[in-house]
């Protein structure tokens, strides 16, 4: 190879490498990123995620920080411990984290006795090959991986809400086609309502027999 050819080759290589470096720098210093987007005006949660990701944390770590802040603040009473009592007055936690690069997911469902939902979900992602753990199995896994617990997830507010609901004959609730319809349980199937579905051969089905209840979901009671 002639000396001029070598010079041309080296020059071209250097130019290519410098372009790569510029492109890489543009990616890292892009004025588009980072970005944090969250449902609802949970400002402190977004700020927590922003602080993490702006300081160089990964997207997954920032999501965990942001959602964890909301759990600690009990955002709207719909996140973290001390809210949304079930029919037994107990608070349980559902959480999920997903990495859009690796498509790894960790999730916990109906987790009892552990308040840190998103951290538990992250532990499922980091330390298991599973996607979703539920119930007391999720609680045991989270505690074994270092999260605090077991603990009571109720709060004075959630206990009061549940007591008021019990005094109101457990209304409203998510039951349908059961008796008693307007009182607390124990519940049994309302056979007259269920027959509408079972006996499809009759033409005397009265659709009015199917119990309809308006949705219970609102700004302070939602998934």
């Amino acid at each position, binding site marked *: 190879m002639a000396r001029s050819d070598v010079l041309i080759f080296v020059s071209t290589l250097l130019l290519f490498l410098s372009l790569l470096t510029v492109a890489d720098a543009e*990616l890292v210093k892009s004025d*588009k990123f980072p970005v944090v*987007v969250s449902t609802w005006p949970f400002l402190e*949660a977004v700020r927590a995620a922003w602080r993490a990701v702006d300081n*160089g944390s990964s*997207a997954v770590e920032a999501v965990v920080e942001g959602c964890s802040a909301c759990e600690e603040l009990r955002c709207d009473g719909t996140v973290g411990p001390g809210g949304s009592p079930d029919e037994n007055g107990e608070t349980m936690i*559902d959480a999920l984290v*997903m990495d*859009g690069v690796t498509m790894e997911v960790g999730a916990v469902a109906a987790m009892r006795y552990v308040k840190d939902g998103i951290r538990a979900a992250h532990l499922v992602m980091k330390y298991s090959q599973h996607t979703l753990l539920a119930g007391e199995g999720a609680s045991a896994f989270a505690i074994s991986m270092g999260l605090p617990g077991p603990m009571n997830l109720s709060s004075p507010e959630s206990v009061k809400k549940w007591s008021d609901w019990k005094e109101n004959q457990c209304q409203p609730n998510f039951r349908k086609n059961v008796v008693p319809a307007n009182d607390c349980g124990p519940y049994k199937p309302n056979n007259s309502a269920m027959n509408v579905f079972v006996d499809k051969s009759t033409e005397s089905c009265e659709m009015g027999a199917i119990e309809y209840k308006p949705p219970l979901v609102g700004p302070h009671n939602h*998934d």
Partner: protein
Amino acid sequence: TISMAVIDRMGHIAVGTSTNGATYKIPGRVGDGPIVGSSAYADDEVGGCGATGDGDTMMRFLPCYQVVESMRQGMKPEEAAKDAISRIARKFPDFVGAVVAVDKNGSHAGACYGWTFQYSVQNPDMNDVQVFTVLP
């Protein structure tokens, strides 16, 4: 419920959800919160999505998976969000819910049904969090 999407400095996307579910639910009930594609979904090549609302209904439609796949097919975030919500509303006119979508470039939009929805954003153009209001 909080559902959150983050794009980090490298352009990588992650999503997450945390909730204590619906009040007075039947013990054992699990909503959409921990269901992949329902409360949240992300794909680095496309974008991410978060959802909130009536989880018992929403988890039947995997709205966040729908949003991300619609964006993959070329829809803008606003169009994808509206499409996912309308698919649920067509079948359940009393449904209440919302989704927020963000594409891999950081463009974002929300859509809702049955209530007025707000979502929050922070990016390098903002000094602090900004709240966006979406009407049904």
